[in-house]
């Protein structure tokens, strides 16, 4: 025989559970509608445009295997990660030009993110404020990149050299493709290793 008070307690708990379930469902629906409405709505505030600054893009040239610094004026955000993405985006925009000295399709959208992580404590040879840049490239960029030792190496070296030119604290660079580690860029250049920006200095000649 179940006591009466236990039956009442059970009924109350059951009703409370059902009520909470209904409430949760309604809250979920409301949040979903709010998200959908937010995506569809027009911006209510004009985007802030960063002031134009001088940036050095170290551009590759397939003809002589060189990396040549070029100074460009472009809007650069204050945040270092966004800044790195902006300069790399402009660099890849240069390569997207069919007449480029190092033609690679994709453009600025090929750099999904650049994460800057502190290196302090990991390598004693670096300065305390040294940074590791993790460059997340898009899968479309890797899929459309021309295959070849020279062209792939030049792309990676020019990215490293451009980061070094604009963010001197970046001493190491790692590459991801769509957020995942990948063996090579397009069949040749190794993407599993960590690149040192100091090794990717601009070169004009052909000396190894």
């Amino acid at each position, binding site marked *: 025989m179940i006591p009466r008070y236990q039956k009442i307690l059970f009924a109350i708990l059951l009703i409370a559970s059902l009520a909470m379930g209904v409430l949760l469902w309604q809250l979920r629906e409301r949040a979903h509608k709010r998200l959908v409405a937010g995506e569809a709505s027009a911006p209510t505030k004009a985007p802030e445009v960063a002031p134009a600054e001088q940036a050095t893009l170290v551009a590759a040239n*397939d*003809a*002589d*295997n060189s990396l040549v610094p070029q100074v460009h004026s472009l809007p650069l955000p204050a945040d270092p990660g966004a800044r790195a993405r902006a300069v790399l985006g402009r660099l890849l925009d240069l390569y997207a030009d069919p007449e480029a000295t190092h033609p690679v399709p994709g453009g600025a959208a090929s750099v999904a993110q650049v994460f800057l992580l502190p290196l302090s404590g990991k390598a004693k040879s670096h300065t305390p404020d040294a940074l590791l840049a993790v460059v997340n490239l898009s899968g479309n960029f890797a899929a459309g990149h*021309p*295959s*070849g*030792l*020279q*062209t792939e*190496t030049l792309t990676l070296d020019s990215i490293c050299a451009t980061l070094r030119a604009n963010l001197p604290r970046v001493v190491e660079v790692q590459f991801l493709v769509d957020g995942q580690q990948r*063996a*090579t860029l*397009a*069949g*040749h*250049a*190794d993407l*599993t*290793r960590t*690149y040192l920006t100091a*090794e990717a200095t601009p070169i004009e000649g*052909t*000396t*190894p």
Partner: protein
Amino acid sequence: MHWSKSTPAVLFAVISIAVPAQQAPPAPAGRFVVVLDAAHGGDDAGGRLDSGQLEKAANLALSVRLRSLLGARGMQVVTTRESDTSVEMNKRAETANHAKAGVCLSLHSAESGSGVHLFASSLSPEPSTRFPAWKSAQAAWVTQSLAFAGVLNSALGHAGFKVTLGRTALPGVDSMTCPALAVEIGPQRGDDNKISAEPDDPDYQSRVAASLAAAILQWRTEARQP
């Protein structure tokens, strides 16, 4: 995990990844062994050339041409593949290290750039050790590889080819314990930058192979001088 705090683990790791070249059977005395590594193969087609041919086929054709020329000059040639088969990167390096190669060339073809691109490992030179790490075994040989690149550059330049030199991280080459280079044949271009010969053009490949063979012969001669 901090490996540096675990000495037994470090010892085990070092021993387990040590270069197997130490266990390789010795090459016949006096023989100069050249290892030719036709890159890609099998499922790994590499790039596609403008002629429509796959890079793996062009690399193999160059390897066969170069093997014939080197054999005719009395050199022992070991190839990593003789047909359209998949060969793992580590296996390629193992082949070179077991053969105790005098030199090793990793052969590539590409549609970008022009002329012949020579690449040495981007590893920093390091003194030779008994148990080098597998992924950076080439570090002890980088200085010789760069010298070998100079010999190839000179020979190809004298033959009228445009040559570009560079450094790169290339799995396989980075694990080789011999003077090793990656040779990438790009299209031959005229002064107007128009392509005059594709990387898989038989005549173009034959001329490049002849220059490479002459350079390897010179390298062997210089290496044997006291």
